[in-house]
């Protein structure tokens, strides 16, 4: 069996927007444009690996304040209670609301860590030109991209609470610095998943057939 034909292998670039196959002869520069729709042409996403790396590192750094700082300050009857994400989960578990505790834990603690780890694995595996389990890695990528949005649950909850609970003297809810950091983590990991080009997983597939 021979290696499958790709646009790259026949010296062509497929336009991302209109799908026109363009000869890659002139596309060494970054300013190549599609003759049909004027979109920028590139064979793979530009600097995909380094961009993903950068965003992953940023997400990793912001993950620390997101968990250390309180996401929510509740002031009721003059007493203020601040809660971090993990503190909130533990409090929920203690008060017997296990289901909600598990949902919050999965959406706010597990998913971000999983996303960062999965993308890290994908980037590293591409850089090391690993040849195994390409299909499973592709599934992992799709899954990562899919679950990303769900970790915004916490942020939505806090936004709704802040809007609703404005009873001044009786109770007030304000967002803490942790909430902003957490939102940034979620958004940056979504961008990281976007900048990663899954085609890179398959790029050296031809070598298998040659060798």
């Amino acid at each position, binding site marked *: 069996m021979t290696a499958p034909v790709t646009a790259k292998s026949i010296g062509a670039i497929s336009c991302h927007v209109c799908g026109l196959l363009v000869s890659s002869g002139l596309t060494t520069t970054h300013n190549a444009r599609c003759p049909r729709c004027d979109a920028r042409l590139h064979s793979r996403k530009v600097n995909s690996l380094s961009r993903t790396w950068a965003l992953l590192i940023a997400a990793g750094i912001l993950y620390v304040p997101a968990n250390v700082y309180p996401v929510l300050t509740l002031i009721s009857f003059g007493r203020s209670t601040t809660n971090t994400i993990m503190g909130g989960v533990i409090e929920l578990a203690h008060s017997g609301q296990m289901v909600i505790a598990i949902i919050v834990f999965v959406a706010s603690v597990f998913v971000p860590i999983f996303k960062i780890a999965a993308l890290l694995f994908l980037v590293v595996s591409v850089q090391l030109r690993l040849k195994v389990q390409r299909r499973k890695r592709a599934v992992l990528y799709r899954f990562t991209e899919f679950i990303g949005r769900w970790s915004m649950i916490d942020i939505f909850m806090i936004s709704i609470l802040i809007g609703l609970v404005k009873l001044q003297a009786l109770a007030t809810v304000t967002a803490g610095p942790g909430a902003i*950091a957490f939102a940034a983590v979620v958004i940056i990991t979504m961008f990281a998943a976007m900048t990663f080009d899954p085609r890179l997983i398959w790029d050296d597939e031809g070598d298998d057939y040659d060798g």
Partner: protein
Amino acid sequence: MTDDSGQKLPEAKVRRGYASLMSIWIVPAIALAVAGYLIFQALSDRGSEISIIFDNAEGMVPGKTQLKYKDVNIGTLSRIDILDNEEGVSMVIDVTREADKYLTDTARFWVVSPAIGFQGITGLQTLLSGSFIEIDPGKGGERKTKFTGLRTAPVITSTDKGTEYILSTEKLSNINRGTPIIYKGLQVGSVLGYRLADDRKAIDVYAFVQEPYDDLVLEGTNFWNAGGINVSVSTSGIELGANSLQSLVAGAIEFGTRHIYESTFKAESRHRFKLYDNEQAKDDARFTEKVVYVLYFDGSVSGLTVGGSVEFKGIKVGSVRDISLEIDEANQKYYIPVLIEIEPQRIKLTDDGKKIRSVVERRELRQKIIKDLIQRGLKAKLKNANFLTGQLIVDLDLVPDKPAVYVSTSDRYPEIPTVPADLEEITSSVAQLMAKLDKLPIERLGKSVIGTMEGLDKFINSGELQTTIAEYRKLAVSIRVVAENIDTKTLPNIGKTIDGVREAIQKIDATLVSAETMFTSVNGLIADGSPFKYDLMNMLQELAAASRAVRSLADFLERNPSSLISGKR
């Protein structure tokens, strides 16, 4: 491989553009900067950790209880440890960096919780928010991290400006921490505390007077206890007074400066003053000069008290110092020596304004005057000052016509001779009674009584009475004759008439009975508390209200005729 291979692919256009200047690596750099800033802020906010020792941890919640200065939150209680010697608890508090400068050895800490006292209600806000710890930073001092908390809030904080004085008193009575200090009814300070003086004979009260009122405290100023009820039983009766309700319950200290001392210097901080028991004691204290005399009374001295006044013609010149009993066994005699203190300063000299004398001269002159008076017949006697209370005072008076009897057993004190408690008052009241009896018209009363008696006597013995009685007897006989005649002649006729009359009377009787029943029922209807009367009253009231409403409506319409069309606005 496919038919595509023969086709020529279109070439890409090349257009000048900008190479991407922004590197993606800016994103992690920004993230690092933000995270770094947050961590730096957290580390820099973390001030120092202090521990405060309190008796107990009442109302303290780790993580919630706050440390406040002027109601600004400057720290949070992080944990509570029980001391190893179990003599209290140690509150470990994270203090913010800004408040670090307050943590000196002059700082004081106390717990603010709701309290109701004579001074009012404090710490009410903590009912909702829970207790908190308050700090009074003090002024300067060395840095410190281990403190001991106060049991109660201090009376003054370091921001209160004023001067502290020491008041020395023999007995504390109702003075307490926070007892107000009053100047002309205005609270100008309070008592910070008290403790036994070093000599253990008096109590030092620490009084604080706020600015600018501390200018009023001069070296010649007097402080006195103005609290409680002042009951003074004097010759003029019983006087009862209190400054204010608060001072009545919580006590108060008042101060004032007598006119002659108004030019003295302003008292320095921690100047020592004497605290007088009451205003009277303060006033009496100006008579520093005292001459003691002894008096011997023959009779009972019951009613005479130590401190009772000594008067000369009704003017107080001194007081009783001591009363005791002496028995002379050899002579089988007893004596009651009463020591009195005469305060010569109470006596003014007529030529005081004209002649200039030194203090010593003046004193000698006054004492000489008293001696002269004794020689001229000054005698002491007990006088009833108040019949209600039976209080006795010593009254001095010039009684030159009675011989001076000296009974002194020792010559320790000069003696003033006594005369027995006089009966003048009793005799005078007896005389008054006699005068009143004198004025009664006894003679005239007696005369008219005699006249009446004589008239009666004449009437009875004159014989007219006998005649009258005989006449009456005759009259009775004739009446009987007439009656008998009537009986036999006119009676049958009268009987008929009477029958008719009886019938009529019976009819009237029936009418009366029915009238009576009617009245009873009407009475029942309108009796107090009957439902009919109640309804009637209600109806009348409703009617009155209705008529009022109609009247007011009419008034309104008269003033605003347009409202008939436009409605009432």
